[in-house]
């Protein structure tokens, strides 16, 4: 049987539902020797801003039970360097490149998207888990008005699919997803990291220089699955499931919960070949279970 693993994310057709999660796959090139990048559904690169950002003081990462916490501080090369230095190197692969973007205010987001419109970027993924400097550091993540304004602005300047990456640090992720859908988002991805704190008892200081960090990895998988499933009951645009996916089974669980595609994050650090392995694994699963298309599995959770 020839199984069909392609998925359609708001017009962007991926050969399979396996994407990389932003910030865990560098600019893709770091993984060339571990995985055939052509095997992936899409490559989502490290978050990009208008200007280069130096990032936080180290220590930037710490391990927690079945997870890690990071506060990289969105270190990045800036949109110009991304377009001129990084993107060309990914041209030789057939895999679409999705730019994860962020800004310190609504305008910042729109400008990055605008600049990316004239590049080979297949889609943008908007990281709203950032403080809005103009609003005194309030998170965009729970600010419906800001998101609506941003979406409208971005849709005007960026002509390909716009994905909004939702934050789990809110009591109403379903409503936030709804706001995205209502304002023209082509898909949502979830979840970003959970706010966490790790302490060194000996020094009575945080283990991470930035104090708080973002929790990811297997520890958060149940939270991510719950949010993906809840959001899938609320909206109709495709959902990209993220959070603690370590293997094929985990990836398929997200799809059963309601995701059309998945992103693999922390697992890349444990096994840099894992994305390719999961892409193959999904194909085998369909084969073994006589399922013609991965889309038949999306949202099949029963109760």
């Amino acid at each position, binding site marked *: 049987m020839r199984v069909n693993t392609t998925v359609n994310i708001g017009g962007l057709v991926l050969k399979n539902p396996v994407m990389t999660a932003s910030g865990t796959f560098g600019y893709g090139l770091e993984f060339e020797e571990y995985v055939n990048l052509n095997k992936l559904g899409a490559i989502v690169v490290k978050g990009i801003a208008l200007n280069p950002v130096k990032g936080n003081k180290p220590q930037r*990462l710490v391990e927690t039970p079945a997870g890690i916490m990071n506060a990289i501080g969105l270190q990045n090369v800036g949109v110009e360097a991304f377009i001129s230095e990084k993107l060309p190197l990914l041209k030789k692969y057939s895999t679409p490149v999705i730019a994860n973007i962020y800004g310190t205010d609504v305008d910042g987001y729109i400008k990055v998207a605008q600049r990316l419109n004239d590049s080979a970027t297949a889609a943008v993924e908007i990281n709203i888990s950032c403080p809005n400097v103009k609003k005194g550091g309030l998170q965009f993540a729970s600010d419906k008005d800001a998101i609506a304004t941003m979406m409208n602005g971005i849709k005007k300047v960026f002509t390909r699919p716009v994905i909004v990456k939702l934050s789990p640090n809110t009591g109403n992720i379903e409503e936030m997803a709804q706001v995205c859908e209502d304002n023209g988002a082509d898909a949502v991805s979830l979840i970003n990291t959970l706010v966490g704190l790790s302490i060194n008892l000996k020094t009575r200081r945080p283990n991470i220089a930035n104090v708080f960090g973002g929790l990811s990895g*297997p520890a958060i998988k149940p939270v991510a699955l719950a949010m993906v499933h809840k959001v899938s009951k609320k909206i109709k645009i495709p959902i990209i499931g993220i959070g603690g996916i370590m293997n094929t089974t985990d990836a398929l669980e997200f799809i059963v919960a309601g995701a059309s595609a998945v992103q693999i994050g922390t697992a890349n650090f*444990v096994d*840099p070949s894992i994305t390719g392995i999961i892409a193959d694994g999904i194909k085998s699963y369909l084969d073994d279970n006589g399922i013609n298309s991965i889309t038949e599995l999306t949202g099949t959770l029963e109760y």
Partner: protein
Amino acid sequence: MKNSGKVVFNKKTGEGLYHLRLAVKKRFKAKPAQFINVKVSDTVVPLLRRPFSIFSAEKKELDLVYKVIGEGTRLLSEKKKGDAVDFIGPQGNTYPVDLKDKKSKLIIIGGGTGAASVHFLANELKKSKRKFTLIQGARNKRLIVAEKEFKKLGCLFATEDGSLGTRGYVTDVLKKVLEPNAVIYACGPEPMIKAVKRITEKMDDVKFYASFEAYMGCGIGACISCVIPVGVADNFVYKRVCKEGTVFDVSEVVI
């Protein structure tokens, strides 16, 4: 590179110190200061790999020396002969050695488990018949890493309690052997690197390279977590220890 080896031995050699030898399938080509990133657990706790400098890489064998610190190294110490160990590497750059320069004095300093990486360097220099002065320091004799192997390389020891070699710090030995135009290579705890820097920064004819450690997420340059500031205090960039390092010119590192 994704790689794996089988435990040949994994023996205790001092206070919490172990020497692990892995047999690998192909001849393992590595350079001093490079490290491998080892999967220590087969559950998700601990989740991350653990980085260890290469102590030696001869033919199809690869040696590490490590200290049990927490859960990850404890699990590593429980590996038995024949167990498979999955690792990634070798990773990182190496100590810059100018083999054409035959006169500058080469001084190699190891502190704590940083001794692993300098052992590899000294051994390579010995093979290429280049002379060097090797120093290893620790709190006491029981914390000296791979004493036998270091003795073979003509190492000068410094212990805080005087239980082996000079009583004092590696810097006490360094001061005695330091010469103009010397090139220093070191790996060890940050206070040691800082102390050596304080001595060398007054002498602009002396070069000082150190292999740095940092908390690592991926070990392959993807997560930008293992960074150290390179440049000057108010104008630096963060560079990745696992990729641009582990070896940096210490005069360029903001520590």
